[in-house]
């Protein structure tokens, strides 16, 4: 008479003698160890347990409810040792498992080295576009980020392209996609390598999303810190290997007075534009530009085109000057009060304009005087309408 232990094989209970339980436990532990690193390990174990359960069921009946130790041993021998198909282990049947016997095919389970373009979100700065592109082409993502920034300077093209890529390129979420993104085959060897790097560990042991997110954040920070350190080194040593490469932001302050002059330049351009409008209107309406008649024989539209060209000719130096002043602001290196100064100048101009109009145009003056009572009337009517609701 021996002790009986009840086990669970894929949801069905079986009773084994104690000795049989020990043998089965050892067999399954062995199998798990041989399959360590195999991505289908759990599934294979489940299949094996199911096969064992089937064999047990064949041995049991109404009059026999326990599997005895000898029967368990027989079943285990029938099952045979579990060999991981991805690693070519020594064949169970061959007694002399020398190196010559086993075929040397360690990467037998490797899928073809197919690389697909994904956005890689891990360790990325914004949406993983540069990361994904870098992994696909084998270029450092930092270089791609630099390229995007430079493109963005060209009237924002870079930002537009980036945004489109965020929408178009899928994000690598499952481990299969992630390995396809970097072109590394999802073999057991690769998983083992990653596990050693601690990567797999982090993803496997966190079952709740909070800890998972926390770990991912720290991982990303580490990666980003490293890349930022690299970027800093590159910036500092850039002049060694690429003369004339403009650093970001420019270390020298903007040209003197540029910030102060900037709103005036914008104003000048506006005045010029208004002058253009008036000139065109006068040309079209009266047939001459402020009293200067067109040379004989030249049609009207030529005159208009000429005016537009003239405007551009005069406006171009203004534009250049504005750009020279704008660059520092564009990079973000703007003196903090530049915006305030800009607004003040414009405000003063508006007030000045209004005062001029008031002073020189009686009609305007009257309209201005009428303004407060008009506003009051309007407010009253609004209040009435509100009260009536």
């Amino acid at each position, binding site marked *: 008479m021996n002790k009986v232990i009840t086990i669970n094989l894929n949801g069905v209970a079986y009773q084994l003698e104690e000795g049989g339980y020990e043998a089965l436990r050892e067999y399954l532990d062995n199998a798990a160890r041989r399959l360590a690193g195999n991505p*289908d390990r759990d599934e294979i174990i489940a299949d094996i347990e199911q096969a064992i359960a089937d064999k047990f069921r064949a041995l049991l009946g109404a009059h026999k409810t326990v599997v005895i130790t000898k029967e368990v041993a027989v079943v285990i021998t029938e099952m*045979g040792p579990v060999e991981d198909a991805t690693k070519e282990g020594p064949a169970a049947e061959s007694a002399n498992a020398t190196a010559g016997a086993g075929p040397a095919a360690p990467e037998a*389970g490797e899928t073809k080295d197919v690389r697909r373009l994904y956005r890689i979100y891990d360790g990325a700065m914004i949406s993983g576009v540069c990361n994904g592109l870098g992994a696909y082409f084998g270029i450092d993502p930092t270089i791609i980020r630099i390229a995007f920034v430079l493109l963005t300077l060209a009237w924002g093209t870079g930002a537009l392209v980036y945004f489109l890529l965020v929408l178009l390129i899928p994000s690598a979420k499952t481990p299969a996609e992630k390995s396809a993104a970097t072109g590394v085959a999802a073999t057991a060897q690769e998983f083992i390598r990653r596990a050693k790097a601690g990567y797999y560990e982090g993803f496997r042991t966190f079952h709740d999303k909070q800890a998972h997110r926390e770990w991912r954040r720290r991982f990303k920070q580490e990666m980003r810190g490293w890349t930022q350190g690299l970027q800093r080194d590159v910036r500092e040593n850039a002049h060694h290997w690429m003369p004339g490469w403009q650093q970001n932001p420019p270390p020298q302050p903007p040209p003197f007075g540029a910030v102060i002059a900037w709103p005036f330049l914008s104003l000048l351009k506006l005045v010029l534009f208004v002058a253009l409008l008036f000139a065109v209107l006068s040309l079209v309406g009266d047939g001459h530009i402020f009293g200067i008649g067109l040379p004989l024989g030249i049609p009207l539209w030529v005159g208009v085109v000429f005016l537009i060209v003239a405007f551009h000719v005069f406006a171009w130096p203004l534009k250049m000057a504005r750009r020279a002043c704008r660059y520092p602001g564009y990079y973000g290196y703007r003196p903090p009060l530049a915006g305030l100064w800009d607004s003040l100048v414009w405000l003063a101009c508006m007030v000045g304009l209004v005062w001029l109009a008031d002073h020189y145009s009686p009609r305007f003056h009257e309209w201005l005087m009428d303004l407060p009572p008009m506003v009051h009337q309007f407010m009253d009517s609004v209040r009435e309408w509100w009260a009536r609701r």
Partner: protein
Amino acid sequence: MSIDEKFTSIRKGLLEFLVLKIISANQVYAADILKELNATEFVTQEGTLYPLLSKMRREQLVDYEWKESEAGPPRKYYELTAKGREQLRETTEYWQKISGTVRSLGQK
């Protein structure tokens, strides 16, 4: 070494090919595959077959669906994928080529 032992590694290498052939005939359970193989010289055990099937599934040569079986929990029912059929065709061609070589070598 008996002749059986000498051919161990060859049988092991051919196993995947034979499994592909068995599954290509019709949809089978893993237990059926074992039954067919054990009737031949290619005696196989579950411990070898299950990891092999799993590797073939990862390579997308076979696919399975869960089928309810009488008196028991649902079982995996294997069938070949298009890629698997392609692979089977290639392997059959290659097998014919090398068996032709084996036959013709050494003939005068």
